[in-house]
């Protein structure tokens, strides 16, 4: 795709018919969780869309996000979108390596000043920047440098969005989120561990289509995908309402597909599109597979108590602490009673006098 071509021209030059384009637009609209009525708008915008440059930085991460993306279940559409963007740097996917790769990154940044999209996966260690470096450049420096000229940042995965697993207690590397470092650029958090692949492409599609920042929730996530919680969209919800719960993973309730609340499902506090978009070619999602949601798209999900502790339980401390408090209370009560007795005796003595 030539830089001066728009997407419509490019697709037609690739022999894609208008029908094919419309189908692509339908799928893209569905991907972006837009209503079908928006297809025409999407088509119009996409036909005129310019090809954005993307620089993808991977920091303290497990590559799960990239794995997720490359396992995206609609490769045709996705490849179209990837064709439609110019992925100028992604050190896992790109063919170039070493100095050449870094030079490409610098070149892309220079060439697309103020227009490129910076995608980040992984958190950034700040206790000691040397904990994670690429080509001798610390993650912190690279992020700051790359963010300087970008149009917007997409923080892919819970690590980049909120610190994620590296940031879990006791956070040995001092891992922080992108938003903890960069404050002067729009940041779109595509959280999840990993994020749903089509959500990643959906956000890129939004850029491609509209060239704008999508509507975000309070945690910086696109409301199109993170607007509703799992519990509200869960097909097992009727069991919750009826109070029918699986008590163990192999009981009758589990077999009947009852609600997993008691087994620690965090669906009610988790905002993600799993229950509708689903995973693995739309086959299902964790709850459908019989395991509760672990709130992987929420900040600090590692530190929200056990994955198998029901949501309504809390970290109430220990019995010993409660008994200790009770013992202190009893001592204070006894003390107050002893002083009250003294006061009473004094009053009685005064009365006698």
């Amino acid at each position, binding site marked *: 795709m030539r830089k001066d071509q728009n997407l419509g021209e490019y697709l037609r030059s690739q022999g894609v018919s208008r029908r094919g384009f419309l189908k692509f637009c339908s799928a893209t609209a569905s991907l972006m969780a837009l209503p079908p009525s928006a297809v025409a708008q999407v088509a119009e915008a996409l036909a005129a869309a310019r090809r954005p440059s993307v620089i993808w930085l991977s920091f303290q991460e497990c590559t799960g996000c990239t794995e997720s993306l490359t396992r995206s279940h609609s490769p045709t559409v996705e490849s179209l979108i990837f064709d439609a963007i110019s992925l100028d740097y992604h050190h896992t996917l790109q063919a170039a390596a070493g100095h050449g790769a870094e030079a490409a990154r610098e070149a892309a940044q220079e060439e697309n000043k103020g227009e490129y999209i910076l995608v980040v996966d992984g958190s950034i260690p700040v206790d000691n920047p040397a904990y994670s470096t690429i080509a001798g450049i610390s993650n912190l420096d690279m992020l700051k440098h790359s963010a300087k000229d970008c149009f917007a940042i997409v923080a892919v995965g819970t690590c980049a969005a909120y610190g994620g697993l590296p940031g879990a207690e006791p956070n040995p590397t001092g891992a922080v989120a992108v938003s903890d470092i960069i404050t002067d650029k729009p940041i779109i958090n595509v959280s999840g561990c990993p994020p749903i692949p089509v959500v990643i492409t959906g956000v890129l599609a939004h850029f491609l289509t509209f060239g704008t920042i999508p509507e975000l929730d309070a945690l910086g996530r696109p409301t199109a995908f993170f607007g509703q919680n799992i519990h509200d969209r869960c097909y097992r919800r009727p069991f919750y309402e009826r109070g029918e719960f699986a008590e163990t993973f192999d009981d009758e309730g589990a077999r009947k597909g009852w609600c997993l609340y008691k087994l620690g499902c965090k669906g009610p506090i988790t905002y993600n599109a799993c229950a509708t978009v689903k995973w693995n070619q739309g086959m299902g999602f964790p709850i459908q597979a019989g395991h509760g949601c672990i709130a992987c798209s929420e900040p600090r999900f590692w530190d929200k108590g056990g994955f198998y502790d029901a949501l309504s339980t809390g970290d109430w401390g220990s019995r010993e602490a409660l008994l200790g408090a009770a013992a202190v209370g009893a001592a204070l009560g006894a003390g*107050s009673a002893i002083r009250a007795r003294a006061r*009473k005796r004094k009053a*009685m003595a005064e*009365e006698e006098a």
Partner: protein
Amino acid sequence: MNVESTSVHELEAAIENLEPTVERLGLSDEERVARAKRAFLRKLDGRKAVDLDTCLHCGMCAEACPFYETTQDERYAPVHKYRLLRRVYRRQLSPMRFLYRPFTPDITIDDLREWRHYVFDACTGCARCDMICPMGVNISSLIRIVREGIGAADLMPPRLQRMKDEQQQKNSIVGVDGQRLRQEIAKLNEQGVTVPIDKDGADTMLLTTVTELRMFPSQLGACASILTKAGANWTMYPDAFEAANIGYVAGDTAAMRVATKRIVDKAKEKGIKTVVVGETGHGYQTLRWLGANTVGERLPFDVVSIIEFIQQAQADGRIALKKQDNGASVTYLDPCRLSRKGGLIEQPREILKSMGFDVRETEPTGRENYCCGGGCGEYVLSTGSELRHRVFELKKNQFDDTEADGVVTACASCRFNLHVGADKTNWQMPIKSLVETVAANMAD
């Protein structure tokens, strides 16, 4: 058997004639408040603390109170009557007093004067509220402490103040002293009833009250007849005959102790085994249940009501009672301090039934019976006469509903109060005393 209304007025006049007529000077306001608080503190113990901490302010106790019921005045709700005590408890003794203190106003002299009306004029300590409280709070005993606090502040109604001073200092009540007792006994002798005085070697001692002596001396005569008939080795002591305890009524614990000690000391001195209390509610209460606590030691003798004495004598076969052959019916007025607070609910009814009376119960009755409205000194308070009369009206209707031939009671104060009410309303139902009824029906 009706009492002349002149004798009612005579008693009132006698009380009025005591000096002085207004609130006594002498104590500063601060000293009064301090005394009241000390009295509160002395009586507040773990039991009261639990009661005060349990109260939910649900207000149900109001529904049990005859003074609230007849006036619908919310200030007469029993829970309101002990509010001052609660405040002192919260400020000075409760476990979290340091937290409550800033939010709980201290009690003032004006509070004490205001509450005087609630706990003297509008409360007879009948303890009906104790029976309704869903939390089991012993409300009447809390109100009682407020009365003692106001008593300690020397702010009790002037009439009671004069009467308790007189009893404490002169061992007489409205002039009724040992001399008067001897006179009444002389009159009884003329009627053929012997009352042994200062008899050596007696093991049983009879107590009577000022009300009996002035209003119903025949009750004393009836008690004497029953004791003698039952073969008791009994006597009366002109320097320790008074069961009435105005110190108790007035909320003055010092005066109360003096009056109680006179009897206890006399009984101990004479080696008395049984003290029989004539027809009085509060006299029984102050000796039977409070006596040992007042003097601070267990009593070496039994305290029994004349009701209990009669029943025991019947059981022992020492006296036999004639059966009525005309099927006469009576209703029984439970004196609060004998029944609800004294445990004598079935006993008087059994005695009446043993005489063949058709005993008709008021609605409500027994443990939930309404007070006559004049208990605990209420009947001598001019300030309470209006309230007292309203309660009487309530009682009167209940008696009338039983369609009994007469009402029987076992407390001279109740009886007196009924007479005053009957006098005002021209109520015709005969008002009888239990002992007189028993004495009149003793078989030879």
